């Protein structure tokens, strides 16, 4: 069964938006396609639902649009096109230097065949509660540039998530253009880690990204941003945990404080074939320990 009818490879954002308008909701944006086409395959082969399946009338491939496939830096920020692949990110010295957590999260997605085509924009647009790239972008306090209703604007990354699998960007008419976030300074560090299981779908049981800023003396945590996912239908910041460790001296006690705060403020749920709530509670502690330790090690290595 074919999954789509027409395939377009526009060279500019305007051309892509024009095509979306032309198809009036019957086309949708595709980047790497490793989620989109696999989801379509799942639908068309479901014995209970196959009869109702409709192929996409057109797919608008955005991976030939130069502004969407580049990684760039400004004085204080990194800009990543939505069509940048996971491989590009993993290999980017710039991102490694300024956003280690993003390299770590993009490096664990799929095998090379998937990372070579799957894009950061696709990961975010899929709007899963625990997309690996997404989790790190949240900790990096990234913004996303979107084109909606003919207007381009920057929105905080978290505003993109309006429900499980539901993005603010309706990919039948809007476009996710790219991301930007501040470079991590020498007194800042980031880390990402996740827990998987060898069975079932390749979604993390839990993922955790941490951005940590230390004070001038390098002795205390001055500020932190933490994203643990999934703990809700959409990604969110662990504000209580961030607050609890801000101002704390670096060390074992800080980690314990983070774990305690997470225990009190976050309540991950049981999800079938993935994990029990109780197990996820345990994994929150493990991941906070692993990622905060990595951040502290990175800060002390500077």
């Amino acid at each position: 069964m074919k999954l789509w009818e027409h395939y377009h490879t526009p060279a500019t954002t305007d051309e892509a938006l024009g095509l979306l308008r032309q198809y009036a909701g019957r086309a949708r944006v595709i980047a790497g396609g490793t989620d989109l086409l696999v989801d379509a395959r799942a639908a068309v082969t479901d014995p209970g639902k196959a009869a109702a399946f409709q192929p996409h009338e057109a797919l608008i491939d955005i991976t030939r649009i130069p502004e969407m496939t580049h990684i760039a830096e400004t004085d204080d920020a990194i800009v990543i096109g939505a069509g940048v692949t996971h491989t590009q990110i993993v290999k980017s010295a710039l991102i490694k230097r300024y956003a280690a957590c993003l390299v770590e999260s993009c490096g664990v997605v799929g095998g090379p065949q998937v990372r070579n085509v799957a894009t950061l924009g696709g990961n975010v647009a899929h709007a899963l509660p625990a997309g690996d790239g997404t989790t790190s972008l949240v900790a990096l306090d990234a913004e996303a540039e979107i084109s909606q209703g003919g207007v381009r604007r920057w929105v905080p990354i978290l505003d993109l998530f309006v429900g499980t699998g539901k993005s603010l960007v309706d990919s039948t008419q809007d476009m996710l253009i790219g991301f930007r976030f501040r470079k991590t300074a020498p007194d800042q560090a980031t880390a990402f880690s996740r827990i998987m299981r060898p069975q079932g779908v390749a979604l993390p049981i839990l993922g955790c990204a941490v951005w940590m800023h230390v004070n001038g003396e390098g002795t205390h945590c001055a500020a932190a941003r933490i994203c643990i996912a999934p703990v809700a239908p959409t990604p969110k910041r662990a504000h209580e945990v961030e607050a609890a460790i801000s101002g704390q001296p670096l060390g074992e006690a800080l980690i314990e404080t983070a774990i305690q705060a997470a225990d009190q403020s976050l309540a991950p749920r049981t999800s079938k074939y993935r994990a029990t709530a109780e197990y996820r509670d345990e994994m929150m502690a493990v991941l906070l320990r692993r990622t905060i330790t990595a951040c502290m090690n990175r800060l002390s290595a500077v």
Partner: protein
Amino acid sequence: MSILDITVNGTQFRREIAESRTLAQFLRVDLGLTGTKIGCEEAECGICSVWVDGTPVDSCVYPAFKAQGRRVTTIEGLANGEALHPLQQSFIDHGAVQCGFCTPGLLMTSAALIEEQPDPTDDDIKHALKDTFCRCTGYTSVIQAIKSAAREKRGLPPLTVNEPEVDEPMHVVSRSVPPQDVIEKVTGQAQYTDDYTFPGMLYARTLRSPLPHARVIRIDTDQVKALPGVRAVLTHQDVPGENLHGLVYRDWPVLCGDRVRYVGDAVAIVAADTQEIADTALRLIHVEYEPLGVVADPEYAHSPDAPVLHPNHPTGNLLKHIKVRHGDIEQGFAQADVIVEHEYRTPTTEHAFLEPECAIGVPKGYDDHEKLTVYVGSQIPYQDRNQLALAMNIPDTEIRVIGTLIGGGFGGKEDIAGQIHVAMLATVTGLPVKMLYSRQESLIFHPKRHATIIRIKTGATRDGKLTAVEATLYGDGGAYASLSDKVMTRATTHATGPYNVPNAKIDCYAMYTNNVPSGAFRGFGVTQSAFAVEQNMDMIAEALGMDALELRRINAQTVGVTTATGQLLRESVGLLETIDDVRRDMLDSSGQEFQWAWRDGHKAYGWGIACAYKNTGLGGGAPDKSEAEVEAFEDGTLEVRTAAADMGQGIAHVVAQCAAEEMHVPYGRVRVLLCDTDRTPNGGPTTASRQTFMTGNAARLAAAALRDAITQSAAEMLDIPPHSIRYEEGLLRSEDTRQPLELGQVVGWMKQHGLSARARHEYHAPKTQPLGTGGDMHFAFSYATQAALVEVDTETGEVACLKVLSSTDIGRAINPLMLQGQIEGGIVMAMGNCLTEAFIIENGVPWSRLLSRYKMPSIKHAPEIVSRLVEHRAAEGPYGAKGVGEIPSINTTPAICNAIYNAVGVRVFAIPVDQDALLLAIKRGEHAIRRAWQHV
């Protein structure tokens, strides 16, 4: 339709194609480059990997027009002309090619890796190939091959091939010759069923039931018949003969008429000009169902209120009650000082062979096809022919089944899939018809490994002598019988383990349910019972304070022991040696004083062991025979012909080696023709670890007969006594003549004199007895011991199997390297059974209907494997060989579970091991987990 400009393997193409094409479809269908295989269309298995501008991508989910203007490299473009890429040669040399279906994907992914990382570590390889699956090799040889090729690319000598030691290698037998068709497999030239096309060929699809149990009220095909491009729509009314098939019980409708019994049951079939039209056509068939109560598990199936699936079956949902009675069970437990009793659960599991089922039917009279012909990669071509004949209502001899290369089977390609459907459609349309299952269709359709519930009680005396085993097993046979009777019989008869157990009472209930049918799967029921038996053994050892290996030594079957089915073992029982091999390797591996378990930070390590045995051949009173033919030609070559399906594990090279040995010709001069019911005699099913023994013998004896005939002719030619003639590397020598004769010269002489240089032999296995009658239920058993080293992360509960030490008594290794690969593959498959795999069915509806929901072990899970061979010759086996196909897939699961217990003190009673439950048990100080992953 649009124009695609693309460079493939250095050649520019401009083609007008549908925009809906994937790159894989474009390569295979439009360019005919069928080396790129399609395994899942979910970006899961990686075997469709090709390069786009030098980087590997999954071509099955890559739109063709995404590659507009790009450079694509496929497996056909990897070699440099005639010169193989170093990786291709290295895969051959290191035995990293079995069925070959995943090989193009592995090669393309690893070739990209060594371009980028000329000196990859094991971890680099595991990272790069983590989503490129192989179900046959177990990855050990793949890793070795990649490292070796990388060295060669850096100008260093290749790595030594890791060949096992064997006793008394002969001329060709017990030598690691390359398997048949291996060049074709590494270059993408090898043809599997879907790689065949015929002019005018139609494409077929099957409409399957979305409900687990329902009455079929009405099937309306009027609308679909009007769809342009549709050539035939057939339902149960169109089955020309008996609308039933089945290998043991004929209970499975070719097309369901009044009732469907599982999600996936076939209701209607269509043939159309294109795959797309066939897909659309299915959606225009309207079926009205009346849902019936669902029998979702085997225990409920046995209860009086469960709906009965097959009203004609005399015992209702009880397909079969299988009993083993041996000695006096009450007395046995009365003698016991320690008794251990537990309940174990195993899930339904899936073969996940990488080639989904495909069949092509060609009508009689089409082209040069003189008969209705079916091309299929099946494990049992002659039985396919017979089942086709009954359903098509024509004699067997009016049908020809041609076996193609098979991309893995493992027991999952024994039952009828599309064979009858394509025969019906080809006959009705007068055109060739291809039916290729999607991965998702394959997953829901074909018979699986039985989910089982095993309650088992083991008794032993203070000094460690087993006194009794009592067990009750429930097997989920699913909607149709398939091979449930035989599989569950094997689970029952092997439920004592490979031990001397004087008293046994074992009852097994094989049940019909509305789940996917269960049938043959490597290990054939013994994999399940070993999971229970071998953990009970460890608990006995613990209760007695005895070493786990010592307990097994004390009770090990030896020559002179009588099994629980009443069989006196008279020869070839190498279990003790396998135990000793593993003990030695385990002690050696620790460097210092051996410990069963230790800790390092938050990681807990443990060794666990388990033993196994597995019959060779059908046994149980079933007449077991195989026939092969060997012909010699004037150019000095031989051809061996037999219909013995090679799923990739290599019966083709085994029969070639046997013939080369008998005729003393170089292996390279032997061709093999397999599985053509018009040209090859019946080798019987590729099942029950039987082909080496059975068809190996048939080929050996046919070759010996041919040699005798040739000797006679040579003697006449030269006028010398026949006994003076010796065979040497394709030459016939005699002290009575100076010049040796070329084999081909004698064949030429024979032809001139109207003599045939061809011999056939039908080999009959030693007679066996049915269960319950005592005597020899089987004519040979293979034995194995394995030790597994596991690492448990006590922070996360994650379990990794780091190492497996294995020793296997296989009688003789006909091809040591390939046999070792089969063992490694079996071990990794069994590790999947323990740690990753469960085919989940929710109230009759499969959840695991996508490959992304069924994880087999990837290369990153692959343990280091040290594999030794014990060769206790089986007197009747070819050169002493007995079965190897299943024995490695039996004891890995309990070895890992015993290791987990030793590492963290938690006993695993249900698999696959759930890290969630394991961690919580560790945290709570509990000592058992009964919840497997699928129950989270």
